[in-house]
């Protein structure tokens, strides 16, 4: 399962969001897309998932332009979970997880044993089995997010794309979710492309970090290569110490002041 972006270009009105960006997702890895607000990371993710069509350039899925795939065929290969999705009131966890089976079902066809098995497995993987018949509205933020991930998992795709899944969650639920993502990669072998706001979270779980800045790739590599004081100054505008995570040895950034001597910030 290969996904490759070639010379993508996006602009909304006159504002350029993605500028001549090329990127190839490596199967089996966790790729974290990071960058400041407005750097284009969410737009890139949606382009990779065929949700948005770039103004120029193309995304290749298994070597074929993704625009030539049907939405349904793409959804059998990759599952995208958008940022803070919302469901109608009165929907149960199992109902929601069942929606992930849509690309595999035909009109008027009820859910078959294969669909039910996929939903059960997704609920088990996300630890939501005992909540299956609960209404989404009655769950905590963390449980609800896991229910959404169960929907993406029941889709049975090699690739999972998550857009800032930890935003609006409290700390315990964030950690829990990151563990779930790592497990899905390590135990299930799913390729994961994840947009993250928190650099330290990204450095902890990702095999590869892609840093976007103003629609271009500013840095790309394993967390140790990418997370440098210089990159943090240039892209995020902060002065920081980068230390080694005492538990994992992955880089950890500790910003201590805003970078103020840059030429752009001069009055």
């Amino acid at each position: 399962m290969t996904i490759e972006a070639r010379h993508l270009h996006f602009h909304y009105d006159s504002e350029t969001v993605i500028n001549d960006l090329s990127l190839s997702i490596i199967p089996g890895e966790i790729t974290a897309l990071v960058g400041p607000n407005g750097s284009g990371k969410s737009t890139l993710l949606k382009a990779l998932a065929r949700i948005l069509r770039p103004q120029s350039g193309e995304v290749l899925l298994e070597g074929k332009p993704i625009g030539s795939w049907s939405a349904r065929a793409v959804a059998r290969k990759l599952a995208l979970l958008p940022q803070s999705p919302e469901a109608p009131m009165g929907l149960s966890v199992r109902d929601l997880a069942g929606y992930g089976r849509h690309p595999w079902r035909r009109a008027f066809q009820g859910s078959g044993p294969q669909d039910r098995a996929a939903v059960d497995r997704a609920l088990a993987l996300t630890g939501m089995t005992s909540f299956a018949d609960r209404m989404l509205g009655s769950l905590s933020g963390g449980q609800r997010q896991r229910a959404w991930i169960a929907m993406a998992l029941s889709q049975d795709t090699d690739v999972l794309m998550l857009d800032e899944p930890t935003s609006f969650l409290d700390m315990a639920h964030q950690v829990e979710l990151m563990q779930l993502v790592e497990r899905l990669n390590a135990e299930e072998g799913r390729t994961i492309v994840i947009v993250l706001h928190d650099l330290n979270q990204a450095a902890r779980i990702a095999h590869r970090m892609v840093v976007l800045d103003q629609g271009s790739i500013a840095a790309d590599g394993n967390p140790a290569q990418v997370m440098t004081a210089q990159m943090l100054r240039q892209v995020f505008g902060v002065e920081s110490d980068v230390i080694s995570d005492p538990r994992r040895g992955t880089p950890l950034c500790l910003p201590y002041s805003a970078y103020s001597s840059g030429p752009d910030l001069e009055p």
Partner: protein
Amino acid sequence: MTKAMKTASPIVIVGLVFLALATLSLGTGSMNIDPSALFSALLGTGDSGTSLIVWSIRLPRLVLAALAGASLALAGAILQGITRNGLADPGILGLTAGAGLAVTGLIWLQSNGIAVEPHWRPAVAFAGAAFAAFITAIAARRDGVIAPVRLLLAGIGMNALIGAATLVIAMGLDQQLYSAAAVWLSGSLSGAGWSASATLAPWLAILALALAAQTRQLDLLSLGDETAAGRGLAVDTCRLRVAAIAVGLAGAGVAFSGGIGFVGLVAPHMARLMVGPKHVVALPLAALCGAAITVAADLIGRTAFAPVELPAGIVASALGAPWFIWLMWNGKDQKG
């Protein structure tokens, strides 16, 4: 209680309420008919006078009320789903007004000697509703996005504009056709015969069948565009397809009975409150609720101030408007 029972019991309950209302409606009027006489009339064994009243006056009117109510309820359920806005309904979005303008135009043509067969009326009403839907959507659209608030505001503007245009055409009619148009516009089932239902039923059947193939798609659309697209739905074409079905249902619903407001708003909410948001069960229940509400509104309109008859549309509005305000106050749209 099992899940199947949870779904089935509201349908059974609303079905029984509908049957009770239908029995009451058939039995009540200038001549009251007790249930046993009613059933023998329905079975064709009653006396000829009673049978005539039941079979040629009250039953066709009841059937038309039920069909129109079901159509409007389904249209409202679709519109609320695809706009993800619990305040959407064929009346508020201007579809009913558009159909009204088209039908008034048809009556105007008739007054000028160009008679159009009545079975074309649903098609004309559909065209009017589609036209209004198109203009409303264009007016509400900005940067390729139709925001719910803007859609409602555009609908209100559309209603005012089309209402004025309809009035201008209606003013040009002679006295008799004018009152026919006015009665139609206020949503009256008065004098309905079998021909209206016979025309409406096939339209409704085709549209309902088309809708039945789209229930999962509607479920996905109600999760928002990106989530739906991520599940493999071709969002834009799918939305266009179900919106066309909604316009068709709204047009068909008002073609003979006129602008019965608020049924399309209230019925889907009642259904969702009872069985949740999944369209495969919420849609049939909404249709049943819509039928029951319209039959009840017609019954109240016929009997409350007898012998003066209030159009069902006015009764439905009088009951539905407070509900609408309550919905706004509670902020009870569909997000959860």
